[in-house]
């Protein structure tokens, strides 16, 4: 059993945002808002609190940038694996949910 699962909503959205390309913090916030169609908005406190944890776990890496106030973050291979595991888990949840809903209807 993966000790990091299930992911919190914030961690899941951050990893999803970084799955496409490397991004700085503000970019991650905008991408999360775009992916959730504005339903989920991350504040900088929540973002960096989760980023710190994900970096400590080795799921996200910091890459060099010209602007010290705009650090770039990248999804690590381990992070990508974790995201895949979480997506598989969620697919199982969705499958179960559909099955139960079909039975009850």
């Amino acid at each position, binding site marked *: 059993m993966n000790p990091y699962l299930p992911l919190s909503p914030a*961690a899941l959205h951050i990893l999803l945002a970084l799955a496409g390309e490397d991004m700085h913090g*503000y970019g991650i*916030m905008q991408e999360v808002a775009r992916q959730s169609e504005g339903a989920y908005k991350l*504040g*900088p406190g*929540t973002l960096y609190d*989760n980023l*710190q*944890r994900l970096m*400590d776990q080795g799921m996200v890496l910091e890459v060099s940038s010209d602007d010290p106030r705009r650090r770039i973050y990248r999804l690590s291979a381990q992070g990508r694996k974790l995201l895949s595991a979480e997506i598989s888990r969620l697919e199982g949840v969705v499958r179960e949910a559909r099955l139960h809903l079909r039975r009850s209807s």
Partner: protein
Amino acid sequence: MTRWCYILLLRLHPGAFRQRFGDEMLAIFDQSARKTALMADGFVSLFRQRALRRSEVVFSSTATADGVPLFYSAAPEVPRAGAFFLGMLISFLAFGLIAFTMSHRWRQMNLIVGSHHPSPSHLLGAHTDAQPVADLPAEVKLNPYPFHPPISAYFRLILVLAALDADQDNEISAAEMENAPAALWKLDKNHDGKLTAEECGLKPDDILDPMMLGRMRLAFMRVHPVLAALDTNGDGEISASEIRNAAAALRALDSNDDGKLVENELRPEGAVLEASSIMFTLDRNGDGRISRDEMQGAIAARLRGLLSRADRTSKGYVTEGDLLSEIRLSEGNR
């Protein structure tokens, strides 16, 4: 100001986190238009950093061996002992400090801290079927609460005065006298078109028998100058016609003709209170006289000297007027 508060909030985060992400968080804060939401978000991250992230991360088992979930939250870490308390304490202290600072330097924050201004609206009944009356014109005070003078105890006791003194400056101005009918109608709680002694401020004991209660009502209405002036026929109630003529009755109390009534012109004279009190106690049959029979008993014995001096013409009884003259005379001799 909000930027300064956000910087203060960032400073309360653990040093390692602040050094690593503080600049980026501030840059995002500067770019964002949702400053209030980001402040709230900052408090959440402060709590999480202090409660969950300070020590080495400990992972909990989220399910038992048979797959039954044990615990799930937004984050899987278990806080170390005491960390919740520490995090909450720091967050509350920070919030209190920022709210206090903003309330003293930024007026809009009064919405959070709250403010109170005294209002005469408490004199209005919660439910009323009375005809709507023209309210007093608003008067803006230059020095609002807490610089407002405290309401006089006498004005609080006599509800008529509290109703008349709309701006709560312990004076009845010419405008307030003019608006007296409208103010007095608000005291008519049972909407019977007149004001009883209780509606004017009398709070009688429940143990009084009906006759004593009636005498107490009459004495209350007679002894207080403002009530005596309004109750022109002296029947112990302020009728509808007396309410309509209230402005003229109040102007008659203005002994120094300065256009307003101050507490000195409204308070009853000490001698009047004393004479009324003695009459109420000794005149048991309520005929307005203290007879020889009523001069018996322990209380009358203590007042024997006063009563005998008051009965100057040896007519065998003492009236309230006799008592008042004697009390004033003895006060003058002191």
